[in-house]
């Protein structure tokens, strides 16, 4: 009977547990297991997505809200030479060269045209990184800091970028700049921090006319799918074979 005596009684057990379990929990969380537990909670799988954007040029009113929202959302420097997205105004006269401008990316609106300017047609074109499937910037990055994510977004790892600016030279669309504070290449990420949580990119969210359509080409329920189905689509500089994933509806031959 002596051998059947319990090794600790109820009081001792509760005492031990109340002291040891919190200690272990503190230990485990200090070494990052907490992150692993959290990661399990998220069911986001990048392989399931292939993001892209559509631009309905006839809907764009050139208000510049998108460029402004982008600067706010992504802490893009406010100076006039750093833009992740901007809006261009095209004025095509009956004869001669097209007049194109984008003062402060269109954020402050557009100045009045010179009096007497004859206009054949005019429109606004929002521009941003095209997240090319065959991205020249990804190809030339010497350290692989610019890469295509598994969900099809071209991103820059700012902790790895050496700041050589080869990618800026290689981008045919002028979509990249060197961030004056981080000294690394920077560009549109489709607001990656938002879209992976199921939100829309800031520029799409604020567009008052629905000129920007965000979604996934491969998903039947995506608004982008509908946009691609009912419009004549073009991409910018198709001759360069960069295979952009920003699709334009109603883009004029003058748009470069």
């Amino acid at each position, binding site marked *: 009977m002596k051998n059947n005596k319990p090794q600790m009684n109820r009081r001792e057990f509760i005492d031990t547990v109340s002291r040891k379990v919190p200690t272990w929990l503190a230990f485990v969380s200090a070494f990052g297991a907490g992150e692993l537990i959290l990661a399990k909670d998220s069911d986001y799988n990048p392989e399931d997505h292939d993001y892209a954007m559509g631009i309905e040029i006839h809907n764009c009113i050139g208000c510049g809200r998108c460029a402004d929202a982008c600067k706010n959302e992504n802490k893009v420097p406010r100076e*006039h*030479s*750093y*833009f992740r997205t*901007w809006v*261009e105004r095209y004025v095509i006269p009956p004869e001669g*060269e*097209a007049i*194109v*401008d*984008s003062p*402060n*990316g269109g954020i402050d609106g557009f100045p009045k045209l010179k009096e007497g300017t004859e206009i054949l047609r005019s429109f606004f074109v929002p*521009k941003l990184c095209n997240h090319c499937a065959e991205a*020249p910037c990804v*190809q*030339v*990055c*010497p*350290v*692989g800091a610019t890469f295509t994510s598994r969900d099809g977004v071209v991103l820059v790892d700012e902790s*790895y*970028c*050496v*700041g*050589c*600016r*080869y990618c*800026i*030279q*290689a*981008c*045919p*669309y*002028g*979509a*990249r*700049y*060197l961030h004056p504070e*981080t*000294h*690394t290449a920077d560009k549109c990420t489709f607001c990656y921090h938002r879209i992976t949580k199921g939100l829309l990119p800031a520029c799409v969210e604020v567009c008052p006319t629905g000129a920007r359509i965000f979604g996934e080409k491969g998903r039947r329920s995506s608004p982008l799918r509908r946009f691609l189905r009912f419009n004549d689509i073009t991409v910018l500089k198709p001759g*360069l074979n960069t295979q952009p994933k920003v699709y334009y509806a109603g883009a004029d031959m003058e748009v*470069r």
Partner: protein
Amino acid sequence: MTHTLLAALTSLANPMAPSGYIYPNEFELHWSLLIIVYPYLTGLVAGAFILASLERVFNVKALQPVYRLSLLTALAFMIIAPLPLLAHLGHPERCLEMFLTPHVASAMAMFGFVYAWYLSVVLLLEIWFDYRKDIVNWGNEKKGFMKYVYKALTLGATDISKKSLAFDEKIGRAITIIGIPSAFLLHGYVGFIFGSIKANPWWSSVLIPIVFIFSAIVSGIALMLIIYMVTSMFRWKHIDMKCLNKLAELLLYAMIIDFGLEFLDFIHRLYESEESIHILAEMISSRLFISLIISQILLGSLVPMVALVVARFGKFPSEMKRILYFIAALLVQVGIFSTRWNVVIGGQLFSKSLRGLTVYKVDLFGLEGVFMSILLLLAPLGVLYVLTKVLPPWDDTDPGAAQIQK
């Protein structure tokens, strides 16, 4: 013609204003003076080495007086060449990532390996094998600290028997034979870094690597001509006119090929007349008028070519020939620097929207400034001075190098 002149004058009068439409991110020029200095320096490396290899592999005996000097010059410029690149990086502390975790599809990443190959396998080995006998001898003759420097430089290989020297000769020749395509690769590759950018119609040309190689040869020969004349002057030695004439001849031939290739590139662009032709024509006639038409073509190519022809094949006293050669070689350096300027800066002055031109304002101070560039251009000469003290390249027993009577 009137239009061209008018555009040039307008741009001279108001050079600081961008014109037409440029993408908002294009206001800042991303590759500036340092990136001009860099291909200029690597060009000199490749050119000087190719000149040295002419003596070694193709037995151009007239070039004997500049053989070792060319090798040391190539090494001196090679040591400094990566510095402008490094200084230009946004994060120079991460530069080794290009070697440790290179992105193999990137032309720039692979250049690191081409550079390392050329420096370690070609230049250092060739110089070591060529100097080994002298290094062993100096190690035995010199006293004090330098004795140990030379002892260390032998790397323990002190055998200078006939058989051993014959082996050195054989290996040295083999390295030079590998070295020639390597030198072509080195500077051709620099050209490829620009030429493979399809987004940029000014750069994107299959001819660019070849033009780079020949302009490298031109700049290298001209540099050796200058260095040979200046060093001879300071050493109170007679200049070997046979060698100088040969250098001038080779310089002229290389210039004819280089100019021909660039002319072909120009005609090809003009005839194809692609979408970009209007903006490029506007750029040449305004922003690049001085650096391209005046500095590169007129002063840097045509004038020195005429001077070389006149001096080499005319009947002048050697004194006059030497002056003409020297002026021609200096002008060639100005011309080649302008070539690099026109490639690097020209490629960024027009918008990729092909609708406007931006401006480049040169800084005086700072990392990307004029003073830093001058320092980087002069630094190789300092390195060369030290190298010639440690490894004297002159064979003063040569009758051609007779002492001038003071």
